[in-house]
């Protein structure tokens, strides 16, 4: 039973045709990696799953994206509800300039949850899931900006987990982190797979092999190859994929 289904998706920025006829199915409780050179459309595609492109002027799409069988661009779908189900972690850690606690509860507060007890429980649960609880449990009221870069990114993951999304989109979540923090994030992703469906955009092919079940290779707006990660990296079918993963361009 597939959780995400993209059918004939095309996307444009003004006259720029950035995604060309993409079809893809994604299974629940899996990690899918999007790879490809800069500007290949992988981030644009990722951001379509929670409609983060909506506010970009000149953005236009064709085709359908179904999540749990529902077309997410349908006019009856409320984008705010969609984003509560499809969380996102960004390239650089972007905690709000507020306390650790306020960051984690933000999504719930946005939904109108005010009960202190529920909020505290969620804070502990999310931070634990994000493997940050032990490090910050005594400083929940400290500014999130005082954390290290790696901690900030795990806080952003906790913030996304707090609203219990089914799907988490990660746009190069370790791009700005040091190797140790990166390893922690990767470990976290593997652990989260039990409860969440994760899609991760990455430039780092080792990372893709380490964390993902399936990998999709994009090139100038086209989905070139979409396969089991092990297979894609060992026996790529397409010559472009092979060139890319062996480092001949990109």
């Amino acid at each position, binding site marked *: 039973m597939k959780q995400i289904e993209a059918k004939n998706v095309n996307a444009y920025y003004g006259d720029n045709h950035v995604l060309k006829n993409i079809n893809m199915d994604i299974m629940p409780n899996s990690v899918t990696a999007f790879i490809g050179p800069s500007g290949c459309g992988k981030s644009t595609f990722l951001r379509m799953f929670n409609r983060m492109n909506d*506010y970009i002027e000149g953005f236009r799409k064709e085709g359908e994206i179904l999540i749990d069988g529902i077309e997410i661009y349908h006019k009856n779908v409320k984008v705010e509800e969609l984003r509560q189900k499809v969380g996102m972690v*960004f390239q650089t850690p972007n905690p709000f300039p507020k306390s650790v606690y306020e960051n984690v509860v933000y*999504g719930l507060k946005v939904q109108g949850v005010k009960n202190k007890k529920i909020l505290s429980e969620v804070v502990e649960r999310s931070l634990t899931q994000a493997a940050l609880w032990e490090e910050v449990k005594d400083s929940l009221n400290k500014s999130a900006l005082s954390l290290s870069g790696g901690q900030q990114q795990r806080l952003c993951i906790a*913030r996304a987990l707090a*609203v219990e999304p089914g799907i988490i989109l990660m746009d190069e979540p370790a791009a700005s982190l040091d190797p140790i923090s990166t390893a922690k994030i990767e470990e976290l992703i593997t652990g989260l797979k039990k409860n969440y469906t994760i899609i991760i955009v990455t430039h780092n092919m080792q990372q893709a092999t380490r964390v993902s079940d399936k990998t999709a290779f994009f090139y100038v707006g086209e989905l070139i190859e979409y396969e089991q990660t092990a297979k894609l990296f060992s026996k790529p079918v397409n010559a472009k994929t092979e060139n890319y993963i062996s480092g001949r361009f990109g």
Partner: protein
Amino acid sequence: MGKLKEKIIESLLAVSGLLTILTTIGIIWVLFSESISFFSHVPLSDFLFDTQWTPLFVNKQYGILPLVCGTFLISIIAILVAMPIGLTIAVYLSEYAPQKFRRVIKPLLEVLAAVPTVVYGFFALTVLTPFLQKFIPDLGSFNALSAGIVMGIMIIPLVSSLSEDALYAIPKSLREASYGMGATRFQTAFKVAVPAASSGIVVSVILAIARAIGETMIVTIAAGQRPVITIDPRDAVETITAYIVQVSLGDVQHGSLEYQTIFAVGITLFIFTFILNNISFWAKKKYHQKYE
């Protein structure tokens, strides 16, 4: 040869820069020297605490409080108009408006600040006051209310453009984080962007207050010349600036105590705006550090 020429040019340019310092020294010296003669005749305590300002009457009293009161009453009215509207505009333009709309509307809003103040004074006296009198029967033909409202309209662009700059400086990633959690633009604006830009917004409001306190022609034309302590916006009042104009228009002898009064009230005004401006520089420095 060439080296010497370069040196001479650099020195000439530097002199122009130094002239600005000379201007400041000039302002302070002028205000101080005339005020000192004033305060040798009028005790500072009278000036600060007496509640009557009647230097042009036979029974002369030199308490600046009525002028300060008039100045602040009108400034408060102006801020009450400019702050909510200016902030709403800033939030709307930075968080909602399409780029095209922003590009067209921003220069148009600047027009509000470009209209000469004497013109605003005319509006307040001949258009707004008669209009308001329909609803507020005991509104005088000179009153603080109209002058304050019109001044508020004039300083809207000051609040809106500086606040928008502050909002604009907030990294896009913070907004995305908020949208990504399912927040609406309204929630993102008021839970994330405005708090993060708060010091910049405070700067804009402080500068607007400083501007309002120093504004002259609107109040001279529309608020009257009655130095009284009141908080009733329907009353005619006199501001510090309006008093300076009143004296300048009359026939006051140089060196007389009446002449010196305009410098004594002038230095008071200068101190107010100087303090407000420096608070705003300090706050601005703080928020620049935060995002660099």
